[in-house]
């Protein structure tokens, strides 16, 4: 089970990021989670939003290089050691994590971890097998 992440290429210049958040705000796109990877030359912004199609449309028409990327999200209880056990499960099965980021919500006592792995289906199966709940697009919308 995978969900969509929006990946945006961000130039390394002042004001680049705020242009993106302004565009999303003006079009009432709600962000669930975000992470940014930066290098000396550029950044890669990763977003989980409530409305992928709309966000994709407004960013593309705003001239941004944006892509919908399949990632997986797993719900874990907000207690020490839980993330470790999820990562152990992936590690044991030889699944590589390219990157991950986590977020918590106001309502549930859970954390959500977004993972970019080499094989989404295999990783989902491994995590479910280990007793984790995989998060769907529907779940994201309801958060």
């Amino acid at each position, binding site marked *: 089970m995978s969900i969509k992440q929006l990946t945006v*290429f961000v130039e390394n210049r002042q004001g680049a990021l705020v242009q993106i958040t302004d565009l999303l705000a003006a079009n009432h796109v709600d962000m669930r989670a975000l992470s940014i990877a930066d290098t000396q*030359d*550029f950044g*890669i912004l990763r977003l989980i939003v409530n409305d992928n199609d709309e966000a994709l449309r407004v960013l593309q028409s705003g001239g*941004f290089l944006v*892509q919908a990327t399949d990632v997986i999200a797993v719900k874990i209880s907000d207690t020490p050691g839980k993330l470790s056990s999820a990562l152990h499960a992936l590690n044991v099965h030889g699944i590589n994590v390219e990157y991950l980021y986590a977020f918590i919500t106001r309502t549930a006592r859970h954390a959500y971890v977004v993972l970019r792995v080499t094989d989404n289906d295999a990783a989902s199966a491994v995590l479910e097998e280990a007793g984790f709940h995989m998060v769907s697009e529907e779940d994201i919308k309801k958060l």
Partner: protein
Amino acid sequence: MEERYYQKEIETMPYEQIRALQSEKLVKQVQHVWDNCPPYRKLMEEKGVTPADIKGIDDLHKLPFITKDTLRETYPYSMLAVPLSECVRIQSTSGTTGKRVIAYYTQNDVNLWEECCARAIVAAGGTKEDVVQVCYGYGLFTGGPGLNGGSHLVGSLTLPMSSGNTERQIQFMMDLKSTILCCTPSYAAYIGESLKEQGYKPEDNSLKAGIFGAEPWTEEMRHDIEASLGIKAYDIYGLTETSGPGVSFECSEQKGMHINEDHFVAEIIDPETGEVLPEGSKGELVFTSLDKEAFPLLRYRTRDICVLSRKPCSCGRTHVRMSKPMGRSDDMMIIRGVNVFPSQIEAVLLNEGYAPNYQIVVDRSKNNDTFDVYVELSPEQFTDTVSGITAREKALAGAIRTMLGIGPIVHLVAPKTIARSEGKAVRVIDKRKLHD
């Protein structure tokens, strides 16, 4: 110090005699291409000129020009004017496959080329007692083979180092007490800095002179190199098309490079109209070879902008002097001694699946050229990982290195971010100060 020459009689020949010699040789060279090189004959016929029209040097202007494109169109055998069995060597420019220019040499062509280089070495003070360290590239590039051959003729001990591996260059330089260094000026500057970093003072090495060419350099750079190495730095000029380095070279006066006029006729033309300009005018340098057998050149447009001077020179040489090139009449850049055309970068981009939206930025840091290429990413090439993008940058830099022989730093950038002026993208930003 008494001025020394490799071939005194020719190098100090009175101008009238040089002209007479040129006239005599030109008639023969024109007849040679007419008889033996069909592409030349066709060019001459198109211009309505036959060998009978060329009675001497005053008729030179009647001949058609040739350009790098003329030579590329006849790839791979260029404008070969002898049977291949008479050729003993090729050298080549860097360039796109199918677009590079291959220069062919008979044994006599090699001999005359090396003789020109020997004149340059002797003008820089070289004798058979010297140790000449050649760190121009060896191989298809003419720098290494040319100076190597010249050094042999002078009788100097020749160190065929080729380029790179600075540690080893310095080790040989110190252990074998090199006295003359031959390389690009930027590499000379780099060696100077490396020596300083290793704690050597300029007087610790045995060098007395350097012969530096293959790229533009300023008087300021000359002073830096002379100070850091404790030497006198001489300029040398040449093109693969004419044979290689040694077409012209500096003497102790260091005011322009004497063109070996017994082998080459130089003209300065208006690059727009092709009209021959009087002595002292700034314009495009055009060469005609007089003795070449395998690969003769009639009125070859170098695209280098220069000035010629016949003012008497204190060294006693009578051959005309050319200024350092002051620019180009085309878009070629020389980066780290390598000729680079933006079209070559564009060809690599298209080949690698990129749109040709790019910008080349060249600068000079500590006397070394920096070379950066900015390329706009397309949606298809965008990936969500940093490693994915840096891998693309490295792959593209590698492809450009394969094409040019020198590698840039590639920066992938967002679409439509490369500066455009009046709607047209600015392809090259050269921040170097190359001309005085």
